[in-house]
């Protein structure tokens, strides 16, 4: 038997999508739209400028409100704990970057309202390098903290 359900046109569908995203945000959830496709260009970038371009970031500002969790000295570059935390409200994304790694961007987190902007991972560091903790805010500001981690034994292989 043929379906007699009315087809929703594209505009109606998009309208429903936007309302749903608002509803989900109110519930502390991430809208599906935030679960973006794999960011190939950003993760392939070999310098900071290319990461900023790939992610559409223009003017990062240094901020005392962003806390970079990193050791001053890492004996083994194969496992260096790097974290980013802030008490600011309105954080959309957090980034962790190692400036002198073969590829600069380590991790990107999309945080919904149920999650505190306070994440930490273990990364590999090829050599001593400045590391960056970056917060992308709802109001389009891009705030960062930056510090150099000295690495005794590089951990990227090759």
């Amino acid at each position, binding site marked *: 038997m043929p379906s007699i359900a009315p087809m929703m046109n594209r505009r109606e569908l998009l309208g429903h999508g936007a309302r749903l995203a608002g509803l*989900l945000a109110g519930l*502390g959830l991430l809208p599906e739209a935030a679960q973006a496709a*794999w960011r190939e260009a950003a993760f392939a970038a070999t310098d900071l400028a290319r990461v900023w371009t790939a992610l559409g970031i223009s003017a990062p500002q240094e901020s005392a409100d962003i806390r970079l969790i990193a050791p001053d000295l890492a004996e083994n570059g194969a496992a260096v704990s790097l974290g980013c935390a802030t008490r600011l409200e309105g954080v959309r994304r957090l980034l962790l970057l190692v400036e002198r790694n073969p590829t600069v961007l*380590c991790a990107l987190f999309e*945080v919904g309202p*149920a999650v505190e902007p*306070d*994440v930490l991972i273990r990364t*590999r560091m090829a050599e001593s390098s400045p590391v960056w903790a970056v917060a992308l805010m709802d109001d389009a500001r891009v705030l960062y903290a930056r510090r150099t981690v000295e690495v005794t034994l590089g951990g990227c292989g090759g």
Partner: protein
Amino acid sequence: MRLRAQRHGDRVVVRVLMSHPMENGRRRDEAGRLVPAWHIREVMVQLDGHTVMTAQWGPSVSVDPFLQFHLRGAQAPAGSRLAVTWTDSRGEQRRDETLIG
């Protein structure tokens, strides 16, 4: 995957230890050939079936990745079901769950 959620005051600390070779594409095997990149690319965190955080990772995350994050306690009452799923660059997936106390 080892998944632990512990309530500390008004937040829940979640620690995840994943088992993955995280080949970054720069290592050579005994014969001197480059081992192709093979690493976790995406991590999804769900609370009672709803996505609350996603992450994308490059090849510089460590072998057997460790991840720590924090849930707001009010949004994660006791008995909530926390699920973490990773997907790697070959499309393989692993999902594990725990109950929040």
